[in-house]
């Protein structure tokens, strides 16, 4: 004769599940790592390679001292002015003689255009605060993005981020933003 197995009372199941739930709720960290992405230059293999000579008008020299003051091409600026200054430097809208030269380049989608030969050079003091360094990097990145967005808007009426890969490459070639960080002077070699 088949005996009926008594049903297991499952009303405490909810309690158990709640307990686990609360544990995971408390231990969860859902922060997504965000940050500014950079690629370091490799260490030059041979000693004393002559750095390619760059004309002074093609360089935007940004110096940050230990008091977090900003000196851009010999001019003291505040951090909020840096973005406009950089954009002006790269675009050189009036073809002025102090701002970078341009080179005729053929770029897909755009055809023959004048591309700036400008180069941003960044040098920090060892006493500069990290916060300031990130601010400068952030402003430069913002300037670069705004320039790209501008070009993308003109051509496709879209933001740079919404373009496809080939279009992004073309825009990137059109408004190049080369940032070179000066080699630290007192490090390397003598250690």
């Amino acid at each position, binding site marked *: 004769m088949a005996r009926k197995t008594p049903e297991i009372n*499952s*009303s405490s*199941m*909810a309690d158990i*599940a*709640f307990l*686990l*739930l609360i544990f*995971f*709720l408390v*231990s*969860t*960290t*859902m922060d*997504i*790592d*965000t*940050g*500014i*992405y*950079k*690629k*370091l*230059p*490799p*260490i030059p293999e041979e000693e004393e390679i002559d750095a390619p000579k760059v004309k002074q008008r093609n360089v935007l020299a940004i110096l940050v001292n230990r008091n977090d003051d900003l000196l851009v091409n010999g001019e003291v600026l505040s951090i909020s002015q840096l973005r406009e200054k950089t954009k002006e430097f790269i675009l050189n809208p009036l073809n002025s003689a102090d701002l970078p030269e341009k080179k005729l380049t053929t770029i897909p989608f755009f055809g023959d255009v004048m591309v700036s030969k400008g180069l941003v050079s960044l040098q*920090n*003091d*060892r*006493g*500069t*605060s*990290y*916060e300031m*360094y*990130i*601010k400068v*990097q*952030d402003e430069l*990145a*913002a300037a670069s*993005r705004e320039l790209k967005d501008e070009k993308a808007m003109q051509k496709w009426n879209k933001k740079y981020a919404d373009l496809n890969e080939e279009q992004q490459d073309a825009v990137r070639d059109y408004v190049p933003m080369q940032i070179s960080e000066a080699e*630290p002077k007192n*490090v*390397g070699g003598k250690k």
Partner: protein
Amino acid sequence: MGKFKKGGSKELPEISTASLPDIVFMLLFFFMVSTTMREVELNVDIMVPSAKEIVKLEKKDLVSNIYVGVPMRKFAKTMGTEPQIQLNDQFSTVDDIQAFIAAEREARKEELRNKLTTSLKVDQYTKMGIIIDIKQELRKASSLKLNYSTRETAE
């Protein structure tokens, strides 16, 4: 017109709680899947600076972290109050970085080794000197992908 009954029993029927465990389990699974457990215990205080032009760091398993900040108060006696580097669980010096990167590479699969990104989690009041040193060491270890960890600026 007797289609609709009027009145009926005045007592409310009890709501069945039989599906409650299911709901809770669903939540539970969501949190279990989305959870990432903290891997290292921080020995330094870090408040990363904020920035606007940030990107999300993807593929967390291909990221190795370097922490720089002022030692927490319980370590202040032994480590001082100058910013220190923390690798894995312990305080380190700049010279340990190359070994650390090598160990991190060793721990990954061979085909992924050159995709390793280093994330610098640095307190915003740190001076650049120590970071310049770290960057030099990373270049020597030819670990060139770098991410400065930042918060997003609240606008």
